[in-house]
């Protein structure tokens, strides 16, 4: 999987090179010539929030923001960090204090300069809790973060103002340099800085954040020339930013993000030629799309994981052998084929295959083994006469595969099941927080940045209880290995330690890894060089218009 992705990226960049050459020579063969002012359209679901980097956590808004902004670093199609963004370098000697040096010459769409201050101000704004920015937690490992959080009482009411309004860990050295001091060492910190939350903001933002959210002023390859209103059902058209300072400016003159609520509609429009790129296919089309679109069919692995997590606080699921037995009773391949029609691949690790440090054989209890599962279940003395509750959030399309999981538990372990999928996310999350899960529950994680740590720490560390660790799993040994990994001097050492931490998870099985998502998309004949990265984002700048 990894190899094919890398080669896909190589081919893609090769194409881009060839295209530039042909554009110079005025030669237009193969139908992939660069055209200056062409326009194309991309399907997106409805963004829910105004387009603010600090407050956008959903993929729809991220897709648009990714075209409008360029962060310190960028990720290639293979989720590897590239210094093709604003940062010239990000260096540290102790993995705690990082010096960020910016490239000169970057400007925002309104002409103001992208300097150290525009990063520091943006990060402070997002981290400050009274601004209520959803991406605030990305800065929680920067020194002084706690001082920017308003104090709350036991019921969650605010009892006062935060002590400070600026992160003590951020220091502007000069126009093009700033220092970041973390509260604990983190060797892979530079990898995190390409995410939406870390984008810089121009002075204009601070004058009127609301207006900015409708028509953001970024520093990316495209600029917004019209306001966008989320929830209004419309779309947004972005035009090329001609003064873009990056190495990879937009190839097309403009891109239209067209909002659809039903992906079926978008697909029909793609077939009819009225939309150019879609990054999700309706279940209906999965079987036929590859044949129909040929080399215009795109498939890439998404940086995420779906698991069946266990309430380790519940006596019934306290024994790791029970949890391993459940994991071994699920035929991931069969569910992937029948229910997901190939849009998922079976998970063999707690870490996504797009991340450096993924091992294909990390989890030996993630494969179907009915005999062993039954043996473990007997050994643990599990009461099979009581049905098992399977929890998931309603209205999000999890019903079919959770039912398939239940059917397999019934067939393979002889346990009846009850599906508890009637509560929407807003009601199920508080229950998960209050240890209200009475059985295994659906858990999913989309990576924030491509590091193994991002798949381990936020989900299973003791520190993340009260955060996203809904299994309430806690193991000091695991915590210690994570910390060592964070403090490691090199990437390789860090990865080695993270893998040891993962081995403990496999043994304790607080959660059974199930699937990785596969992005399947397709594009029309009008466009070329369509790349979907591991975050599921289409690199709009790279897209060329054919003919």
């Amino acid at each position, binding site marked *: 999987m990894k190899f094919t992705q890398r080669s896909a990226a190589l081919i893609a960049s090769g194409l881009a090179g060839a295209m530039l050459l042909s554009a110079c020579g005025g030669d237009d063969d193969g139908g992939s010539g660069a055209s200056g002012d062409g326009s194309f359209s991309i399907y997106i679901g409805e963004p829910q929030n*105004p387009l603010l980097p600090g407050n956008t956590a959903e993929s729809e808004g991220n897709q648009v923001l990714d075209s409008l902004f360029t962060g310190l670093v960028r990720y290639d199609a293979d989720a590897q960090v590239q210094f093709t963004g604003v940062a010239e370098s990000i260096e540290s000697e102790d993995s705690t204090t990082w010096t960020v040096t910016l490239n000169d010459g970057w400007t925002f769409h309104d002409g103001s300069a992208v300097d150290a201050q525009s990063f520091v101000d943006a990060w402070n704004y997002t981290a400050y*809790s009274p601004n209520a920015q959803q991406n605030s937690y990305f800065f929680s490992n920067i020194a002084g973060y706690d001082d920017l959080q308003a104090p709350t009482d036991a019921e969650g*009411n605010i009892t006062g103002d935060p002590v400070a309004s600026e992160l003590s860990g951020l220091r502007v050295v000069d126009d093009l340099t700033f220092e970041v001091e973390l509260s604990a060492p983190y060797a892979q910190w530079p990898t995190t800085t390409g995410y939406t939350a870390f984008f810089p903001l121009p002075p204009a933002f601070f004058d009127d954040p609301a207006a900015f959210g409708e028509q953001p002023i970024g520093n990316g390859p495209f600029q917004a020339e019209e306001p966008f209103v*989320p929830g209004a059902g419309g779309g947004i058209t972005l035009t090329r930013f001609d003064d873009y300072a990056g190495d990879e400016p937009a190839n097309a003159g403009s891109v239209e993000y067209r909002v*659809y609520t*039903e992906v079926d*509609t978008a697909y029909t429009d793609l077939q009819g030629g009225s939309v150019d790129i879609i990054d999700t296919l309706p279940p209906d089309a999965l079987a036929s799309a590859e044949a129909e679109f040929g080399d215009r069919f795109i498939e890439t692995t998404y940086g995420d994981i779906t698991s069946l997590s266990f309430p380790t606080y519940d006596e019934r699921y306290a024994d790791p052998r029970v949890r391993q037995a459940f994991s071994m009773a699920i035929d991931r391949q069969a569910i992937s084929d029948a229910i997901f029609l190939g849009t998922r691949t079976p998970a063999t690790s707690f870490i996504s295959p797009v991340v450096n440090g993924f091992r294909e054989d990390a989890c030996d209890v993630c494969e179907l083994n009915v005999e062993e599962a039954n043996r473990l279940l007997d050994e643990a003395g599990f009461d099979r006469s009581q049905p098992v509750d399977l929890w998931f959030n309603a209205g999000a399309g999890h019903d079919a595969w959770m039912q398939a999981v239940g059917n397999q538990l019934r067939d393979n372990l002889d346990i009846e099941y009850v599906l508890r999928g009637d509560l*929407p996310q807003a*009601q199920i999350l508080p229950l998960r927080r209050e240890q209200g899960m009475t059985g295994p529950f659906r858990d999913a994680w989309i990576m924030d940045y491509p590091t193994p740590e991002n798949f381990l720490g936020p989900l299973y560390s003791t520190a993340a209880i009260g955060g*996203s660790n809904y299994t309430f799993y806690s193991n000091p040994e695991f915590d210690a290995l994570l910390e060592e990994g964070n403090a490691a001097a090199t990437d390789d050492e860090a990865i080695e330690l993270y893998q040891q931490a993962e081995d403990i998870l496999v043994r304790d099985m607080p959660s059974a890894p199930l699937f990785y998502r596969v992005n399947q998309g397709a594009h029309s004949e009008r466009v070329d060089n369509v790349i979907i990265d591991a975050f599921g984002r289409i690199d709009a700048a790279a897209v060329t218009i054919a003919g």
Partner: protein
Amino acid sequence: MGRYIARRLLLTIPVLIGASFLIFAMVFALPGDPVAALGGDRSLPPAVEAQIRDEFNLNDPLLVQYGKYVGNLVQGDLGIDFSQRPVIDTIEQRLPVTVRLAVVAILFEAIIGIVAGVLAGIRRNGFLDNVVLVSTTLIVSIPILVLAFVAQFVFGLQLGWFPISGTSEGWGSFLLPGLVLAAGSLAYVARLTRTSVAENMRADYVRTAKAKGLPRSRVIIRHTLRNSLIPVVTFIGADIGALMGGAIVTESVFNLPGIGRAVFDAINNQEGAVVVGIVTLMVFFFIFFNLIVDVLYAVLDPRIRYD
């Protein structure tokens, strides 16, 4: 007449308040935490959640919340949703879509319904009458859910006569969803017209007109139809208000960004302000059109006097 209208208007106030409180109480009784769900599968920092909760008065008791809501409502402020967008803006943006859909639906049900009803009614138990009877029964028996998919599949996908969904084709985009939305009422209008026409065909004054030797078409149009349409017109009037609420399924299936879909999404996201705002609006329309129907009744049917 003036006094009657004034009395009816006064009566709408408790209904409007009652209905909006009912929906408000249900929405805000939801014990889930809409703020917690904002971060998706990920938790927000506690202080950030607390800040958002505070901004939306989610910590107040129900009656205080409702009081604050009505206080703002009277000043024309419907509140804002979780993405800081005023609810009134959402309504302004979405309402035209639903209004267009309703207009197309009403036209369909009026034109097709009345024509079918008249054809069936002038010759009872004739061939056309039976066709109309059977087909209307069939139409109302098909749940709107099924009808929407069938229409989309057959006319949109297979035959390609209509755009499958979206609003890109202007009024053309509303033909198919409008027809689906109108189907049930259309059948009822046909039935109502049929019964009414058939009844009037037997009435003395029509017999007299026929006996006078007036041409058949004149008898039907001038004498029968005018009187037969009174209940039909009033039904269509009342239906305008009801259609607004019936748009949830149609708008979802046909991807129309109207208020029906907005309210469905808002229920799932627990966007209380949006739900209450839109439902209050729907209730208002419903009451308003019913009021008009009552007045129309009095105007059209000289036998009825209110006072």
